[in-house]
Every structure is written in C-alpha cells, then in structure tokens.
C-alpha cells in the first residue's frame, strides 16, 4: 500500500485527447519526495532545453505535495511547474486553497499535461472518471466566473476548480492560475495553461488517503496544533506587526498599510513616500477595508485565515490573498478603495498581483517621459485610475500596446526601445520583483536575490530575522526559544549581529555565515514545496510550527519513508540541485544572478563577488553556478553530469575545484 501519496499520476496528452492513469515508482518518492521534487525530475526527463515554453512538448504539471490530504495542518499546496514564457527557465509557482487535497482524494498525486488542445477545453476529474470537456462557452470569461459555471453545469458544488481568465487564454507572460482563495501567479504559468488550450481543471474526490503510522502521525499533528495556539498567543516582539505572527502575512487582518506605504516604493518602484501616512488616510483606508471585507477565510485544514472575501460595492465578490491589497494602490499612486476594486477585475482576468501593477506603472512612466506616445496610447483616459483600468484591459486582450506590455517589463522594454530598458529596472532574471529599494547592502539578501530560482524574495527568505535587534537583551530573549534552528551556531550569529559598528551589514553576518543562513532558509522552502506545506506555517515566518526537526518524523509516520534530518537535508539538496540543472541546461549562468542594479544604494563589488564565489562553492557549484560532477555524484544525479558533458556544459576532466573548507561534504558533518 502507498501512504500519504496515492501512487498514481494522471497523464493527459491534449493533442490526442488521450488520458492515462499511470502508477508511479515509489523509489522516485524516496529520492525526490513529491511536489516540486518530483516535478523537477519530470521536467528534467521530458523537457529538453530546446523546447520553447509555448511548444506542445512543454509540460505543465499540477502536483499535490507529498503530505497534502493528510491531517498535517496547513498542508494543502499544489505545486505547478512548467517552463516560464517570461524567464524561459523552470517556473514553480504554488497555490494554496483546496485543490491539492481534492486531487489526492480523487486518487492522484499529480496531473501532467502535454501537447495542445486544438479547442478550448476543461478537464473534469471525479475519482476514476476523467473527461476532457468542451469549454468554448467559457472563452473570455473570468477565472472565478468560470469556476462557478463549471460547478453548476456539472452539478458538483464541491468540485475544486483551478482556472485561468482572459490573461491566460491570451498567453500574457504574467497570467495566473486562480483557484478559490488562492492562485499560482508567478512566472506566467497561466499563459502556458492557456497555450495548451485548457481553461480549467475541476476535481472532486471521495477516496481515502492512507497514513503509515496513524497514532504517531496524529501525535505529531497535535504538537503542531498546540504550538500554533501558543504561537498565536505569543507574537515575536521586535519586528514589524506583519512579521510577528505565523501564517501567510496577515494582510487582510492587520492594518499595516502605514508600514508598507512608507517603506515600499510607489509607481514604477521609484518613489518612497515617507510622510504619506496620516490620520485622514488611516480613517479612510480602515473604513474601506472594513466595509468591503466580508469574512476571513482559510485554506484547507488550516485555522490561520490569511485570506478574505472582498465585496466592493456594485462589483462581484472575490477572494483576496496577501499583499495584492496594496500593489495596485501603490503602483497607481491611488488609495485602498481603488486597489481593492481593480483587484477584483484583475483576479477575474487572472494576472499576477505583483507583476501586473508594475507593468502598468512602467507603461505610465514611459508615457510620461515621452517614450510611449499618444499614438501608442490612443484611447487612454487622462485620469490616473482610468489609465490603469484601460491598460489592464488592453494587456489581457493583447490589444495595441497591451500586446507588447503583456510580455512583462523586460521584453516590453526591448521591443519598445528608445531608452525604455532603463525603466524596466526592477527585474531579476527578466522577472518583476517586489517594489523595494533600500540603502545598505545586506549580504544575506544579496545572495538570496542573486541565486533564488523561484525568483521571488518571499519564496526564499524567512527563518532568520531580516534585521538585527538593537539591544543584546532583546537578542538573547529571541534566541531563547528558537528551537527551529538546524544548528546552535545560528543563535550565535544572531546574538552578535549589531545594527551599527563592526558586526553590522554589509560585513556581518560574515560571508560564510551568510552562506549558511541562506542555505537553511532556502532549504525550508524547498522542503515545503515538496511536501505541499504552506510556507506560512513553515519556511516564511519566524519560529514556525514546522521545521527541520519535526519534518522527518512527519514523513516517516505519514508516508512510511524512513527519514531523518540528514536524509531530508540531502533529498532537498538533491532536487534543489536538479532545479538548478534544468535552468543551467537552459542557459542560466552566473551573469544572470544579480539583484536589480539599484536595489541598494550602497554596493560593495568586492564583497559581492566574494559572497557569490563562496556561496557557489558552498553549494557545490563551480564558479559559473554550474553544479560540479562531484556534487552531482554525491546526490545520485550522475545522469545530469552525463547530459552536461554531452552538451559541453561540463567537461570530462572538470575537477570540482572546491576548497575543502567550504565543500558540501564538509558541511554535512
């Protein structure tokens, strides 16, 4: 019997309309765990680097995490992986909500789509019955509308539906896949779904998921539950409100607009408004939120209520997550009322709440600086908010200038020319980043921005505080109950970290410490993405309920796979390296690994070089960021070496060139 996982994949060839239920190899799970890990393996095996994102040979994988559907609180993530049209690299966005557990209960761990459907279709999965159904009547409809209509026409109110809106259908490079209160938004995976001609995937399942060691597993869940309760009563002091608790940032509950509006950038990530907040704004925005927000809502099997249903007057209700409450507002220099209203339309269209507002602000800035002209923008209203609605409508339809903007700021700037590239200034690896511009280089963040392959800072940061605490006593108090650290030394790193003086940024944490901190933070995200755990209960917040010490037990008791910390660390490193291998094979190199030029005012080229050199060595990659033969061998990824040699990425006589001091082997002691 298989535990936690179902042991079956659904393979769908859209070109031929062929559906197969295929048993998966249990050994694969031991090696790659599931979710992201298994997705990386499938992409490596099936999608050679010559395959373009919009080719029928590109695959689109919807994978439930290994522990989704079990009683593990907050374990509900679907990891969607494909090749991104925007970065041309591997994309692995996830979504919370209800879809992954439902897929498990239907009897599948993942759905693998290949080919292209000639007509718009949707998939209907109900246990053993799987159909490709006509979706021509859903063309152009909103993502939420679509989900409702599908539930109605199937007469299945409990079906969970992941769907795209017009943006996905029209292959907008930052189109999302929406699903109830969640979405897989980053890197344009919705565009790949649209390219494949799939409007939605509806799932309903009524089968069992088995637990290997039921009593032990429940005990682990109880511990997590008790800790969640304790943690909810004991916020972490000394950090901004939104970082004190657990869960995804409680943007719906907490009125933290003051902090964000004064510290994040407005417009096209340009303007900091330090004195924006005042009593009048506060009153008005609080009123807006409280009048539109209908209810706090959670994902499957989670008490944290990080989302909310929002009902703007005269508009349909939608479900909002996280920070999109302010991204439109700030991009347009407007107010919360505008932000919550336009987000309703954006959700129906299905666009990423980070990239979309930035692309529009970028267009407005180009227009104001004469690079885009009246001819390009013919028909655009003159009022600020009207412009944003107008731009959004053009982009998702790919009409006129919208067709150019729909490729994101990087590609649009190239096409527009005339100096436009200067305005696409907030990208990493061609992808729009959080609207943040700071002063002093932070060595930990430098490494995360450079090397994060999810290409989004929130998907790699989390376990180590973002800034030092001013007083030693505060730091001592912080480390006292910090049992989540993989090693006691992290406590010392934090204790010695000062806001000013010798032990402060950018030279402290030291290069070596920074490498270790980044490695730990990243590993936790990768583990979450394989198990299907919400980052909000694990890798993202400080002092979370899930960590490197209890995860192995969850895997052993839940999936029946013998696991300990060393094994789990190694497995995570294995598929993390495989993700890199996929990207290296697609051409990513050191030159691509850099933060936006203006992210920090104060830069330190020598230190930065040292950081990256050392981190690469630490990870077992060569100086160009390519995993070495030794590393690949140690991780049982010799098949990657073979391929790299064939392609001339590595040569037969490439030594590992790593000094012993910082090699991976050394580190795992």
């Amino acid at each position, binding site marked *: 019997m298989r535990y936690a996982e179902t042991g079956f994949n659904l393979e769908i060839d859209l070109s031929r309309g062929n559906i197969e239920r295929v048993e998966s190899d249990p050994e694969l799970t031991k090696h790659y765990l599931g979710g992201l890990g298994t997705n990386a393996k499938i992409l490596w095996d099936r999608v050679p680097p010559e395959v373009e994102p919009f080719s029928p040979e590109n695959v689109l994988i919807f994978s439930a995490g290994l522990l989704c*559907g*079990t*009683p593990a*609180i907050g374990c509900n993530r679907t990891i969607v992986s494909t090749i991104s049209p925007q970065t041309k690299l591997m994309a692995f966005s996830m979504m919370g909500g*209800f879809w992954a557990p439902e897929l498990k*209960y239907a009897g599948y761990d993942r759905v693998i789509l290949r080919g292209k459907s000639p007509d718009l279709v949707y998939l209907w999965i109900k246990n053993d019955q799987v159909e490709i159904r006509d979706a021509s009547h859903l063309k152009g409809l909103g993502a*939420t509308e679509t989900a*409702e209509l599908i539930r109605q026409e199937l007469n299945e*109110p409990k079906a969970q539906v992941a769907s795209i809106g017009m943006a996905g259908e029209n292959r907008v490079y930052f189109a999302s896949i929406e699903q*109830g*209160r969640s979405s897989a938004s980053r890197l344009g995976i919705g565009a790949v779904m649209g390219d494949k001609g799939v409007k939605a995937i509806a799932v309903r*399942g*009524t*089968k*069992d*998921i*088995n*637990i290997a060691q*039921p*009593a032990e*597993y*429940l005990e682990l869940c109880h511990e997590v*539950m008790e800790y*969640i*309760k304790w943690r909810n009563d004991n916020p972490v002091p000394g950090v901004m409100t939104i970082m004190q608790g657990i869960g995804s940032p409680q943007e719906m509950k907490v009125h933290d607009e003051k902090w964000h509006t004064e510290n994040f950038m407005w417009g096209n990530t340009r303007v900091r408004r330090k004195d924006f907040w005042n009593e009048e704004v506060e009153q008005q925005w609080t009123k807006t939120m409280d009048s539109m927000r*209908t*209810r*706090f*809502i*959670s*994902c*499957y*099997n*989670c*008490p944290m*209520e990080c989302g909310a*249903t929002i009902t703007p007057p005269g508009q*349909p*209700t*939608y*479900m909002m997550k996280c920070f999109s409450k302010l991204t439109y507002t700030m991009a347009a220099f407007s107010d919360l009322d505008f932000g919550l209203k336009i987000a309703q339309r954006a959700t129906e269209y299905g666009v990423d709440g980070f990239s979309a507002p930035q692309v529009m602000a970028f267009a407005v800035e180009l227009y104001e600086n004469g690079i885009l002209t009246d001819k390009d923008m013919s028909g655009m209203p003159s009022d600020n908010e009207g412009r944003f609605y107008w731009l959004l409508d053009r982009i998702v339809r790919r009409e006129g200038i919208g067709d150019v903007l729909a490729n994101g700021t990087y590609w649009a700037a190239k096409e527009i020319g005339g100096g436009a590239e200067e305005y696409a200034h907030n990208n990493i690896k061609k992808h729009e980043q959080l609207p943040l511009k700071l002063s002093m280089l932070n060595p930990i963040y430098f490494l995360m921005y450079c090397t994060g392959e999810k290409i989004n800072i929130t998907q790699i940061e989390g376990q180590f505080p973002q800034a030092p605490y001013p007083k030693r006593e505060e730091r001592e108090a912080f480390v006292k109950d910090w049992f989540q650290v993989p090693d006691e030394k992290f406590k010392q790193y934090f204790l010695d970290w000062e806001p000013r003086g010798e032990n402060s940024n950018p030279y402290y944490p030291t290069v070596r410490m920074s490498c270790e901190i980044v490695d730990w933070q990243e590993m936790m995200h990768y583990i979450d993405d394989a198990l299907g755990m919400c980052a909000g209960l694990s890798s993202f917040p400080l002092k979370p309920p899930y960590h490197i010490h209890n995860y192995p037990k969850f895997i052993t008791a839940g999936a029946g796979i013998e696991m300990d910390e060393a094994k789990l660390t190694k497995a995570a490193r294995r598929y993390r390296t495989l993700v890199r291998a996929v990207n290296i094979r697609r051409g990513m190199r050191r030159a691509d690994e850099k933060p936006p030029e203006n992210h920090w005012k104060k830069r330190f080229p020598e230190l930065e070089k040292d950081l990256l050199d050392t981190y690469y060595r630490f990870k077992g990659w060569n100086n160009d960021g390519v995993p070495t033969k030794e590393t690949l061998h140690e991780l049982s990824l010799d098949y990657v070496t073979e391929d790299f040699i064939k392609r001339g990425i590595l040569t037969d006589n490439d030594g590992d060139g790593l000094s012993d001091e910082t090699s991976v082997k050394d580190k795992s002691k």
Partner: protein
Amino acid sequence: MGENTKKTIKTIKVDMDKCNGCRTCEMICSAFHAVPKYSSVNPARSRIRLIRHPLRDIYVPVHAGEYVNAECAGRDKYVINGKEYEECAFCRASCPSREEFKEPDSGLPLTCDMCEGEDEPLCVKWCLNDALTYEEREEEVEEDEIKAQTEMEIGLEALADRFGLEKITDAVARMREKEQ
C-alpha cells in the same frame, strides 16, 4: 412506561459567523472514524459537512443526524441577513435526496456519534476558530427513549430500505452458509 432517568445531552454549538471554511472538521472526523483510528483520511466519509459558498458568504457546518428513508414532501429556503440558504442546508438527515452523510462507496448512512470515547468531539477540538463549541447538559428522560440504534442497525435499515428485507435476509443466510 419506563422510569425517569438522567440523560446527558451533548450539544455542539455552531457559530457560522466564525467559520472560515477550512473543512478541518470534515478531515478529522473522517480520520477518527477510520479503522484503525486515523489510518486514513477522506472527508467524503465524515459525519460533519460544510456547506460552503464563499462568493455568497455561506458557511454551514452540519452534523449528520438520523437516517431517513424518504425525502421531505416539501422543501424550505431560508433567508438570513439577505443571504438565501439552499433547501436542506440546515437539515441533518441522511436522506435519499442528497449525497451528504453517506459512505461514498456503499451509500450507507453516516451518523455523528459525538466521537464516542473521546473527551471532546474531534471536530470541536480541531476547529481552532471556535466555530464549533461543545456543551453538555443533563435532562430527564423516559428510559425507553435512551436505546439508541447502533450504527449497524442503521446501516441494516438503510439496506433494507434499498433492497427489501427479504433480499437482505437471504443474503445473510447465504453468507452464513459460506462461513460454515
């Protein structure tokens, strides 16, 4: 007429305003009733169901009540605070008109047993948002009423309704023969 006896009435108070739609209650109920306990999870087997329409702000957790062999002659709709609740939304019966409260494979009815043997119903314990709270009170009742049907009896009754008592008796007889 039996003598009067004290009976503990177990109540779960449902505060729909506090429900966030997480379906944890369904999950844990199904796990608790798995054999062996917690060995599997399948919300479709749970004895509590969440009726959920986020876009209409409808969240109704309902515990499975009695099995009935016929559906109601008429149906009601409730409007509360401007929200219209579907027919049967608040009904606890396992009845022929709907899928709720039936085992997905066999179609046999499910009944909430208040998690017999536990200090506190599991759905209540796992609902950290206090949408479900547990209350007990004593009531005097006549002895006869106490005899609750066992789960097996309810199942048998459902089978009898579906196939006729005679067929069931025949089948049982055949099964007995096989065993001997």
